[in-house]
Structures are given as structure tokens and as C-alpha cells.
């Protein structure tokens, strides 16, 4: 019995620990307005307060806190990307995740399970080897492993699905998972403690831009003046950017995931196969979570489809035949803002005091801490772009300096 729980059992009244602040009135003006109270928006607010003493901050959320893609993602944390820019960035994120529970005084249940990605073709083996090498170059723990090693890691895995036998695997020891909601709550709790205001059910309906600067945001609860604005939403990044007069090379696709009933634990690593467009993990509750590729057409909707479920679960059974008897409990979707190079957009925008944290496709959750930290640095410095996020500027698309992560993103999230 951990000491922290004793007070709950021994005190007559429930010792209420307030994590999320109660609703309050909007002030007429804030130094920083952050649009979107997901993991990212809350992390930016927290690091602004913690490292830069900036606390006259409002985080505006149209629905409930952490209810967008923070709530809908499948909580994969990893850094085995392909480009130097990507690996450097995500590796730092993984390091920060490892500290969050103690930093928040709130258990995010960070669980280092390792991520295994399967290669079924020689082309994939080449790509994986490159990812392993880039990862190692930047201090990450990633190895190519053979069939025998895969068998030892995941004895229940079928190594010969259909006509695509597994040739090799990419074993990312740093691969992890965490309680995704808790990440948002932890940031919210600590940001609020430092004076940041979080306003739920507060939808930004328009932006007031004059002479290339943003002056105010219009919400369903009235207009708020601001020193600067950070856009930190997902699923409608380009629509909000359009309100600021900014064109974005983003297309929004639904991404679906599903979960079974809870079963006694049998699978520790996160396992995915790019050829089968399927990844599988067992949560701390014992449920099996499945995910795959984005839907084949852009759409602003979080509906579920039968087609995707059929193909995804067909592939899941090829990987783990015994799962045919497992029962699916729930299917859901998020909206992913896909960029042409499968990398995010962070940094400055054509509007002077409007900062972008957008285009997070299927890779937003795993970047939460580092994105929050670097974006806070950017905002606090009044627009000095930290080196770690400089490659992810919006203007890379017009300058043909993309950071191509397409190969390292499909079906691995």
C-alpha cells in the first residue's frame, strides 16, 4: 500500500485534491491566448508559466479539456523516426515523458513496453535499417531483429501471415505508452496551480487580425484581447488558420481505432505491421487496442466505418490468430491533420504574433512535452524559434525543405 493512499483510507472526509480548476469568468485581455486545451495547449501553458513566468494566459477549449485527439489517440510514445530532425525532436520528447509523473505529482502511468514493427518485404527491411541507424545515431535504443528474436519477444505472434512472411523487425526499446488523458490533466493541474486560466466550453469563432497582427479572439463568451495567440488544435488546423488568413497544406482525414474487452495480460510490447496496416497493444486495463491507417478520403467527421473495421481486424487476426475469439467493445475515430511530409507545423506564421502548433496528423500525442516546451520558449521570446523546431516551420513547404517522415509514420503512429 503506497503511503499516498493512506490519507484517503484514514480520513473521515474525502481529501479532495482539485486537479482541474472550476469554471471562471473570462478576463477582457490576456498576454497569451492558447486555442485548444488538449495536451499541447496545456503543455505550452504549463511551460510558459514554469520556465518563463508568463501566467497571464488563457487556454480556450470549445468542448471539454483534453477531449480532442488527446482523448482519441492510442497513446504510443516513440522516437524511431527516419529524419535527423524528427528523431532529435521525438527523442527529447521521450526523455521528457519519463519524468512527467514526478514533475506533475500525478501518475501518467508511463510504461516502457518497447515497440516492435514488422517487416514483410525487403524494401521495408531497408527502410527499417535506416531508421534504426538514425535512431542510434541520436542516442535512441532501436535495433533490427530477426525472426528468432521476434519469436522470443512475442511468442504469440504469427510470423507467417498469408503470403507475407515476416522477414525482420524493428525493435524500439524506448517505445512506450502512457495514460493519455492523464498527460493532459497533469499539465492542466500544474498550469492552473501557476495561475493559468483554462476555459472549457469556450469556442473561438473568429480571429481579429489587423495590419498583420492579431488583436483579439472572438468566442461564444465574448471577445478577448490578446498579446499573442498560439493555435494548438487538432482536426481542424487548416480551418482555424484560414480564419487568420493563413493557407495550410493540410488535409484532414479520419483515423479510427478500436478496443476489445479486458483480458488477462499476455502482450507487453506494442506490435505493428506496416504491410498489414495494423498495430496492436494491450493496455494496462487488459484491453487490446487496434489501430491502422487513416481513412482513404478526407472528411471532417469522427464517424466509424464498417469497412475499416473489417480490414483492420482481418489483419489483426492474421498477426494474432487466437484473437479471432476476442471481443471488440468499442470503435472510435479522431480527425488527423495530415501534412504532405507527415511532419508537424510549428513556429511562426505570416501573422506576426500568431504562433502555429498544427498539422499533427497521427503523431501529436508523443510530442506533447517537447512541443509544449519549445513552443513556450518561442512565445516567451517573442518569436525566436528554438533550433529543435526550426525545421518544422510552415514556410518549409514553399521552400521545398520538407521533413519527410511518411515511411516512418504509416500504421505505426
Amino acid at each position: 500500500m503506497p503511503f499516498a493512499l493512506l490519507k484517503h483510507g484514514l480520513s473521515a472526509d474525502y481529501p479532495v485534491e482539485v486537479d482541474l480548476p472550476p469554471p471562471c469568468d473570462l478576463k477582457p485581455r490576456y498576454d497569451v491566448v492558447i486555442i485548444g486545451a488538449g495536451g499541447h495547449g496545456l503543455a505550452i501553458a504549463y511551460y510558459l508559466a514554469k520556465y518563463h513566468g508568463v501566467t497571464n494566459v488563457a487556454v480556450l477549449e470549445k468542448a471539454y479539456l483534453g477531449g480532442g485527439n488527446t482523448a482519441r489517440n492510442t497513446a504510443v510514445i516513440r522516437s524511431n523516426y527516419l529524419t535527423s530532425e524528427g528523431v532529435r525532436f521525438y527523442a527529447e520528447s521521450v526523455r521528457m515523458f519519463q519524468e512527467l509523473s514526478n514533475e506533475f505529482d500525478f501518475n501518467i502511468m508511463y510504461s516502457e513496453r518497447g515497440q516492435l514493427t514488422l517487416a514483410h518485404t525487403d524494401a521495408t527491411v531497408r527502410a527499417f535499417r535506416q531508421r534504426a541507424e538514425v535512431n542510434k545515431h541520436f542516442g535512441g535504443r532501436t535495433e533490427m531483429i530477426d525472426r528468432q528474436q521476434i519469436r522470443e519477444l512475442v511468442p504469440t505472434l504469427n510470423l507467417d501471415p498469408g503470403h507475407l512472411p515476416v522477414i525482420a523487425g524493428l525493435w524500439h526499446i524506448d517505445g512506450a505508452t502512457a495514460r493519455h488523458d492523464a498527460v493532459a490533466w497533469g499539465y492542466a493541474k500544474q498550469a492552473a496551480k501557476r495561475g493559468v486560466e483554462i476555459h472549457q466550453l469556450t469556442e473561438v469563432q473568429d480571429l481579429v487580425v489587423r495590419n498583420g497582427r492579431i488583436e483579439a479572439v472572438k468566442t461564444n463568451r465574448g471577445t478577448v484581447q490578446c498579446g499573442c495567440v498560439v493555435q494548438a488544435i487538432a482536426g481542424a488546423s487548416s480551418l482555424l488558420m484560414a480564419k487568420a488568413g493563413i493557407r495550410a497544406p493540410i488535409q484532414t482525414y479520419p483515423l479510427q481505432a478500436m478496443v476489445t474487452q479486458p483480458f488477462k495480460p499476455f502482450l507487453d510490447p506494442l506490435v505493428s505491421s506496416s504491410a498489414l496496416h495494423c498495430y496492436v497493444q494491450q493496455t494496462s486495463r487488459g484491453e487490446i487496442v487496434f489501430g491502422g491507417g487513416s481513412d482513404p478520403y478526407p472528411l471532417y467527421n469522427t464517424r466509424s466505418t464498417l469497412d475499416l473495421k473489417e480490414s483492420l481486424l482481418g489483419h489483426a487476426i492474421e498477426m494474432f490468430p487466437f484473437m479471432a475469439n476476442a471481443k471488440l467493445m468499442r470503435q472510435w475515430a479522431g480527425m488527423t491533420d495530415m501534412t504532405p511530409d507527415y511532419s508537424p507545423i510549428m513556429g511562426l506564421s505570416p501573422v506576426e504574433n500568431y504562433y502555429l502548433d498544427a498539422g499533427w496528423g497521427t503523431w501529436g500525442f508523443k510530442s506533447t512535452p517537447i512541443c509544449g516546451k519549445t513552443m513556450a520558449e518561442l512565445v516567451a521570446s517573442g518569436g525566436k524559434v528554438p533550433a529543435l523546431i526550426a525545421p518544422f516551420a510552415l514556410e518549409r513547404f514553399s521552400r521545398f525543405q520538407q521533413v519527410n517522415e511518411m515511411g516512418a509514420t504509416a500504421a505505426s503512429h
Partner: protein
Amino acid sequence: MNSPTRLPAPMGLLIDRERPLRFSFEGQSYQGFEGDSVASALLGNGRWLLSRSFKYHRPRGPLSMAGQDANSLVQLPEEPNVPADLHPASEGLKVAGQNFSGSLDSDRDAYLGKFSRFMPVGFYYRAFYKPKGMWKIWEPLIRKKAGLGVLDLDFKPQYYDKAYLFVDLAVIGAGPAGLRAALDAANSGAKVLLIEQQPVLGGSLNYARFDIAGTRATSLRAELLAAVEGHPNIQVLLRATCNAWFTDNYLPVIQHKRMYKVRATRCLVAAGSFDQPVVFRNNDLPGVMLTSAAQRLMKFYAVKPGQRAVVLTGNDDGYLAALDLQEQGVTVAALVDMRTTPVDSELATELKRRQIPLHLGSTVYEALHEAGMRHVSGVDIRPITGQGKVATQGLQLACDLLCMSAGYMPVYQLLCQAGGKLAYEETRAEFAISNLPTHLDIAGSVNGRHLLDNVLADAARGAAEALAALGLDVPTPAAFAAERPVNFPWPIFPHPKGKDFVDFDEDLQVRDIVNATRSGYRDIQLVKRFSTVGMGPSQGRHSALPTARLVAHATGRSIGETGVTTARPPFEAEKLAHVAGRAFDPYRQTPMHRRHLEAGAKMMPAGLWQRPAFYGKAEDRDRCMQEEARHVREKVGLIDVSTLGGLDVRGPDAAELLERLYTFGFAKLAVGRTRYALMTNEHGVVIDDGVCARLGERHFYVSATTSGVDRLYQQMLKWNAQWRLDVDITNVTAALAAVNLAGPLSRQVLAKVCEGIDLSAEAFPYLGVRLGKVAGIAARVLRVGFVGELGYEIHVPARYAERLWDVLMEAGAALGIRPFGVETQRLLRLEKGHVIISQDTDGMTHPAEIDMQWAIGRKKPFFVGKRSIEILEAQPLKRKLVGFTLPPTSAQPLEGHLVLDGADISGNVTSCEYSRTVGQIIGLAYAATHQATPGMHIPIRVEGGEIVQATVVQLPFHDPENQRQEL
């Protein structure tokens, strides 16, 4: 405890007493009857404890007897989490409990319930991480306690399939509403599909009571069933569940081992409503069940649910159920009605006549239990003094059955998936569904109609609306009568000692929900995520309503404002096998596949295709490849290239289309000539290549990469949908088979079997294309040079492929012909420095990086990617694909290894192989521009971290003057 004997007929609608069966539970043998569910058979034997709860491992027995709760989940040898109240008992079936340590009856983990105070809502967020690193120790311990049943890891998938149905009207639920609506619609000519979860039609008519005499249900049921059964316009699916609603009435219906995928023009949901529990202390004990569950037990299975019952109710239905119980010999010790207002006077009189004590304005405050909490043993009845408040003194009664019903919650799941909204009607204390799409309707108690006549009238209305939409005859619908509310507004009675469960699946008590809101989790979605309410197997069937009420009260909002969490598919847990159906695992073989196997080829996947990697054993790869390669260089080899994409482009604008799609110029290409074709996308990135052969003024034959052709064909159609050129594009990849006959002796081989083509170098030069006959088969013959030798690509209709192969092999036998595989071809082309798109290029490669600027037509006004290429070419080049060599003794880099530039990564190896022809390890790699001059050394980090210094060389490695291919 209950007697194992069954009640006499007419109880036991589903069981066949003539056919007893034996099965086992937890190793003990039990008798049941054909038609029994596992749970009913066990209860018939007096066995109530079926499972242990998720968190506190409390004993649990059936709650709903309808497969709608987690209390009845049991373990079969091959299948965990099986609802015992739905799963049929069968001869020899082995059933076990789940989620316990030791035995189900004395679970060592049951102590956890005593520590519930130390495990407040979300306790795991508040502990286990201090000091730093502790979580790594705690997590595996906590993880061991996770989950419910055990998956059989050796289970082999069985045969499951799919079927497709198209109907005018799908009716979901065959209770009174569903039967009436189906009948009305069918009588007017609609083709109706009637979907029922139970093994029999009738729904609540089978188990509920609608009048004091108890005859109404039986007669109505008989009348409706007689008309529906055998109706030519009604197809009935029993034991079938419509498990989701997808856009445009696309309905997956699961029955046995099949999923029907139904498209319905109209859909009418008549799925009824879920009986709701009352929240009080120990409301989870075995023997405490929903009132409808007790009725189901008696009427379906002839199981007497107890000897002495207390019925706790918030509506008139509880009174009727009390009559049912008494008629079957159960002593009703008390009817506890939470309402204070006088009820139906006839019912009250009947109760009095039958000497059933009535306690108005009271509730059960606590269920009492035997030692070990194995069964309810009594109740503490208290007068209600306010919302959720009771008097300090009460009455204790002994009982072995407690039936509870706080009212009903519509079966809203499918409807919310269709965009339906739940609005709370304060006066009726009930959620109502609105905002449905026009082609989806609801009728009966799911629509808030509970009086039987109103249910039927609502069904008639629903049928009429469907018929009107279908353009069929519309009967006149009946009028509705006034009805009393069925929901008690606040059936929640918190107890200071807790165990007043709101969510049975997750062991959540009243205080857990309230405390979640006090910690700031005020939104219903946040309450769910923090407390896990509604996240268990029953997905909030019984917890959504009390949670909405508690959260609304705790946060000072209305219940309507608070709402319930989103319902998503599936309606009930579905096996992956049902969704997946038969595994389709498409792959492609070329028409020469058999010949490769006969020749001992090691096959490899290439996209969807199977191709020979080389001919020989896997372990002899290097030797086989080198020998095959030498053979092509010195004599002649044959490779199957049928998988190469083939596109026929015909029409007056054929050349114009290619001008726009590919970087090169094709307008002036002479008939009978071929030209290399490179394709870029709008970003100027190289995405495919092939050869364009001009067969006629208006006819091109274009090849594409094996893996790229399908996408490319789509792209071509997409572009031409915009451009509207007068051109016809056909993907002939599978229609044609092809081989490449390559090597210095290839002309001699071909000459033996070729008619109608002058093969001399002058008449048929390098890059020419000719039509003629090879082996007597009409063929397109192209002179190509991918492997760097004199060579002919011969394309023939796929059906003649084996013949072509055989004739060429025979013709070449005397000259030593032998087949070679893809891996050998890769080596040969590497020696020539030819890139393979997608192996030597990546998602960023533009033509200048791979020295392909020669393949760009500069005079054309447009091609896809032109603008981007011009922008890219104006920028300094950052990296280049270079050829490199290493001495044969060096460690060989593998494809994917990195090229370094100081502390940075400047590129990666894309191709690398030992070449016997060159006598060196040769390869292609990206390197920084300043590293790319021939003669320079590039550091490559190979396996084990060693760094080798490779020499950059001019490409190609072999035959730099290209003399061999142009012979």
C-alpha cells in the same frame, strides 16, 4: 437457497424438458435442459455466484438475464468473457468463472473490497510513482490484476463468413412494436427484415406482464406471431443482433457464425429499453436482480428465482411482476414503491387481496447478506425523506430475492451512432431520443411509449411513415392514450459505508462519481475518463442514467445539460472473427509461376506479386546470384518481367497525355522507337519510371514499376478527368506476360523462334520496338538495356506465357540459357548504375539528385512537377546519389546504413552488393553534395558501428561506354 426443481408449464418457454443435458461449471457437474442459457441452468440448480467483479472481486450473479451486464461473464475453454445469460448450455460444455485467484467461491483477492477506502476514484493517478522509479516496480504488480477472462493463445480461427441483404425496411427488435410495424409494412407490400436477439419472437410479450389478469401478453403474442410467421414479405433473423448503425442504414447483423451486411431503405428501431437498477448499498449481491430478469427466469426457463422476494420499484410494472412471482409460488415479503403518490387503484387493491405488503414512499437502503456475501439474505427498508435521503430507522426483512427497477433507459446506442441526441424530460425523468436521420425511425418503449396500446399505436405510426417514404399504401394510424411516468426521478440512496454501486462493471460507488466531479472532472466525458464509469463490458447500459443524475446534481447543472457519454459501435461486444469474416489474402502469380517453381526458384514478394529472387536454395543466395549474373554477362539469361506495369494509351491525344504526365518529350518520338519515361509528382519528387514504346501514331505502350502501376493508373485517370484529352488508358499489366532475354547471345536465341522481325542491329537497333511473332505468338518486342547487355523484352498475351518460356528455354538450351531472378537483375542493373525507383529514391528525391536531368524535356510548356523542379534546381543541391566502391575484403554496408559527414548524417546506402564482374563491393548512396565528387571518400557506418571509407566513383561501374547493350 433455491430449490433446483423447475416451475411447471407454461413457464419455461425456451426449454425442452424432454431433453436434459449435463455441463460443468467450475469443475462441478450440473443438469440443465435444451434451451437453457448457462446462467439459467446454473440458477435452476441454485448456483448464483457466477463471477467476481473487476476491482474488488465481489461475488456477482445475474443482473439482467439478457446478456447486458458484466456480472454474468464466464470463461469457456476457448473463449473468455462469455455472457452466461445468453450463451446456450450444451451437453458436455465446460464453463468456469473468471477474474479470481484461488477459487471462484473463495477468491483470495476478495480482500480488495475491504480496502476500497484506500482506493478512491482515480487512486492510481495519486500514487505509485514516488520516489522516482517506483512505478516500474508497481506497474507489473498492478498489471497482473488487470483484465477479466483469459484468452486461449492457442486458439485456431474457425470459419466465419459474410452475407448481404437488401430490404425496404429493417425492423430491429421483435417485441410488440417490432412485430406490429413489420406486419403493417409487410401487409402493404414492403420487403421487411425483422431482427431479434432472442431465440423467439415476442420481446417483452414473452416475459413481462401488462394486466392484472396476466392474459393480455399471451393473446397478443399469439395473434402477432400467427400473422408474422410465414409472412411472404417478412424475413426473420432470430438470435441475431444488429450490432451497429453505419451511414445510410448500413447494418451489420450478427447471427451464428455470420455477419449479414444489410442495406435498408428504411430502418425502424424497436429495440425497447433497459430496465434500470436502483442504487443502494450492496445492490450488487447475487440474488439482487432487475425485475425483468426475474420475470425472464421464470417465463423463459421455468426457474424459480427465490422463495421469498422483495420487489423494489418506481413504477406500476413492479406490481405486475409481484403478481407473477406470487403466482409461481414465491412469497412476496414486500413491495417497496419509491413513489409516494397513490398508484393505480386496481393494482393496489389486487395487492391487498393477495396480501402482499406495500411500502409506499420507501426504498431498500441496504441489501443484507449471508457470510461471504454469496447471496442476499434480507433488506433494510427505509422511508424516503428527500432526494436520496432516508429515515434513520427502518424495517428489516428476510428475503432471498430482491427485484429492483428504477425505470427505463431507451436502447439508444444504435440511434446515437446515427447522430441521435438524448434530451432529458424532467417531468418524466426519462431520456428521449431526437435528431434522427430521415430514413431512421424509432417506435415503442425506445421512443418513450410504455403503455402497451401506445406501443402498438407507435409501431403503426412508424410503419405508416416508412410506407409513405417507400411510396406504398399507408394505413391509418391509431391515437395515443395518456400514460404515467415510468421512471422514478432519483433512485439513488448513498450509504455512508458505500458499496452503493453505480457501475457494476467497474465497481464504482456513488462517492466515486461525486468525488470525480469534486476533483474538477465536471464534464460527463471527463467523469467517465477519470472514474472509468461506462468503460466496462456493458458500456454504461446500467450506469449512464444514474451517472448523469449524480454529475448533474454535483455540478449544479440539469441532467439534460449533463447528458451521457457517446455511444459508439458495436452495440454489444463482437468477436473479431465476426467482423473479419473469411480472411482474404490476395496475392498474384505470373503466368510462368509454375515454371519458376519447377526450376527451383526462391520466391519473394514484390508488392502483391510473387517473383523468383534467384534459382536455388535460400542459403545459396550469393553463389546463385553471382553465377546467374555472370551467365547474363557472358552468355544469355531469361527473366520473367510480367509484373512490370503495362499501360496501353491510345487515341489522338495519346502523345499529349504522356507529354504532360512524364518529364521527357514524346510528341516527336518516332513509331517503332522507345524512350525512357520518368514521372514526378507536383512536388517534383520522382515517383515512377518506365519505357514508352510508340507502337503507332496514336498508340503507346508504357511500362511502369511493379509496385507503382496501380497507383499510377489511378493517377493517369485522375489527371485525365481534369484534362479531358481524347485518349483511352487501359491497364494491361495482367493481360500481357513478358520476359527479358538478355546477354550477348540473346539475338541468336531469339532469331531461332522469331518471325516477321529483322533482328539485325541496323534494322532493329537499341531502343527500338517491333511487332512480330515469337514462338508463333503475336508479340511486342522491345530492345532494352536495364541489365546492360544486348536484350529483348518480349510481351505476349498472358495465356501464352508458359509456351513462350518453354520455347525460349528450348531455343537457348544449346547456347547455355538459364533463368535469372529479381535479385540477380538488381545486381546487374547496379553494375550499370541504373536506379530503382523507391529503392534508390525516397519521398524527397528530385531528378537532379539522381542525375536524371537529361530525362527532362526543357522545351515543353508543362508537365506534372515542372514548376517544382524549376524551383528546386534554382536552389543549391543538398545531396546526391553517388556510386561507391569498397574492396572485396571490406565489411559490406547494408542497404539503409548511414553515410556520415562529421557528426551529421549526410545520407544513406540505397543499394549495395558484391559484384564479381567489377571485382569490388559496389553500391549507391546519398551523400552531401560536397562529398559527391568521384575519388572522394565517404564514411559509411556499417553493422556493429564500424566505419568504412568508401570511394566515390563515376557511374556506371560496368561498361561505361554502353557498348554491350547497343550491339
